[in-house]
């Protein structure tokens, strides 16, 4: 509320102008104050956690983090212990951090590629029944993944059998190979939204561009690579960052498909375990939680533009 056109100001009488200005300034100040209160309120819990994670263990357990300001003592010991400590209670978070990375990278790449292929076909390769396929994939967004968890797990552990006839063997994955299950599950669950989002962007590309390439004799592979992909790069970035945050922060899929051991479980699973069984070991919980926050925060801050664009395009996974 800053710009008032000069003509309007000139017409107003002096007194009116003065009260108006005072009121505006007052409401502006109140508004700013409320906004600042909300911002502080929103930031304090995270700040408290961060500060606590840097305080010595005996202090975290006996005094609040605000007493840091009267008795400042900082240490990195909590991080050392939670990341690299090898006693069973210490967290071993470094191992889970690696698991998180191993889970996340392919779980972002696969759906990105498959969704892009499918979206291209649905947008630019005309065929009979195309609309129905699109609507079908689109409608799958309704299905909550809870609907798929039990059968998908048995698909991995028992294979497929119809009336006693074994059509597909169990995957029987052990050790690090279990990651493949998690990649598979994340890829399946990401596709409906991914196809929808990328199709939205691809179908808005100018048709002449694709037609021109086609007339020049380019194959679909070439059009896809050289024309479409570069133009929808921002959409790929948007979907990529969504999927990254989703997978990195996911607990449910990981609990079911990755198990709970340092062999394959990601950090979220470990943190949930620690919050449950050692709910009062705050020195480890705070440091561990902060380790898990840092990477998505960095990605998020550096790619906020794409994230916001995606939000506004309605790409929120339900």
């Amino acid at each position, binding site marked *: 509320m800053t710009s008032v056109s000069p003509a309007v100001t000139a017409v107003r009488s002096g007194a009116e102008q003065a009260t108006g200005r005072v009121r505006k300034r007052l409401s502006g100040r109140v508004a700013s104050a409320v906004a600042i209160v909300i911002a502080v309120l929103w930031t304090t819990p995270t700040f408290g956690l961060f500060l606590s994670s840097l305080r010595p263990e005996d202090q975290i357990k006996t005094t609040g983090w605000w007493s840091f300001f009267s008795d400042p003592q900082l240490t990195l010991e909590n991080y050392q212990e939670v990341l690299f400590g090898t006693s069973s209670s210490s967290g071993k978070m470094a191992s889970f951090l690696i698991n998180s990375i191993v889970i996340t990278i392919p779980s972002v790449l696969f759906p990105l590629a498959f969704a892009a292929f*499918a979206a291209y076909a649905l947008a630019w390769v005309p065929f009979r029944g195309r609309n129905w396929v699109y609507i079908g994939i689109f409608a799958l967004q309704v299905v909550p993944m809870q609907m798929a968890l039990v059968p998908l797990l048995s698909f991995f552990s028992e294979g497929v059998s119809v009336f006693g006839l074994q059509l597909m063997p169990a995957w029987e994955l052990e050790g690090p190979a279990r990651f493949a299950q998690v990649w598979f599950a994340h890829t399946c669950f990401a596709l409906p939204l991914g196809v929808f989002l990328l199709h939205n962007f691809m179908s808005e590309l100018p048709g002449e561009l694709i037609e021109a390439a086609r007339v020049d004799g380019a194959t679909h592979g070439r059009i896809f690579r050289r024309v479409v992909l570069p133009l929808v790069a921002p959409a790929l970035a948007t979907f990529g960052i969504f999927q990254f945050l989703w997978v990195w922060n*996911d607990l449910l899929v990981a609990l079911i498909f990755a198990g709970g051991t340092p062999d394959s479980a990601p950090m979220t699973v470990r943190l949930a375990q620690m*919050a449950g069984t050692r709910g009062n070991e705050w020195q480890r919980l705070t440091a561990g939680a902060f380790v898990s926050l840092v990477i998505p925060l960095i990605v998020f801050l550096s790619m906020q533009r794409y994230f916001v664009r995606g939000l506004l395009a309605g790409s929120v996974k339900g």
Partner: protein
Amino acid sequence: MNLDFDFAAEQPKLLQLLYGVVAFCAVVALLLLLLDRAPMRQKARLHIAILLAPALLLLTIGLIVPAVRTTLLSFMSGDGASWVGLDNYVWMFTQPEAVTVLRNTLIWVALVPVLVTTVGLLYAVLVDRSRFESVAKSLVFLPMAISFVGAGIIWKFVYAYRPEESEQIGLLNQIVVALGGTPQQWLLDPPVNTLFLIVVMVWIQAGFATVVLSAAIKGIPAEIVEAARLDGATPVQMFFRVTLPSIRSAVLVVLVTQSIGTLKLFDIVRTMTGGQFDTSVIANEMYNQAFRYGETGKGAALAVFLFVLVTPIVVYQIRQRREAVR
């Protein structure tokens, strides 16, 4: 403290990651190669098959078939051996522990979308065009990047309880004590504890509402705002007569999205209370029944009920989106 972290033991995982990435590159390269080789005019079907097959195959294996099987399982006994008709659904709506779960979910869905929208709208209006707008929005937006598990821990720390005679380490109890009250175990007493869990969800999602609504507010045509101001509208009138009606569809988007997210909520409850003390919700109970108690039938029934609850909202959302696209 023993810090002999065994890095060598981590190598197989990284090798597995390498396999995964190599497999990814190989699959993509193969698909592209097939596309290039298949002649353009004659074999359109081949192109379509190559492009669509991976997605359709995965959707069939990963979503469609499992969803059908879950629906069937919901009419079967816990071990999936015999048909039990509607028993699982009867259990869901009659047994006290299951009814509590439904009641909690209802509380969540009734409160979260409204609270998130209110806070987001208030904040978006207040910081609109102020000097520190972008920083302010980022601060409220940041929790969006944090996992629900992380947020659960952050807030568990805020709610931490120490007996009255010792010093408090949780911020909320410290404030209560400073105001002369006695410290409480916030997460133990139903039904209030659910409200304290809801605060966490609102804290995470308010940034989403702020961003969406703020963008909508900026989209209001300047002439309308100017005209209202010329007519001498007070800020309050301005908000209710101009701003709110103009961003109605964005408000609906937020309400709808939040309703869906809230219905499926799992992580916060699981991290903060594990569903104990009467705080469980549908998604959490579904996990417990199906994966901890081995009651597949009951878990499946809960999943189907969740699907039934979500469907009308998603259908509505899709309609909205389509209109927005047009």
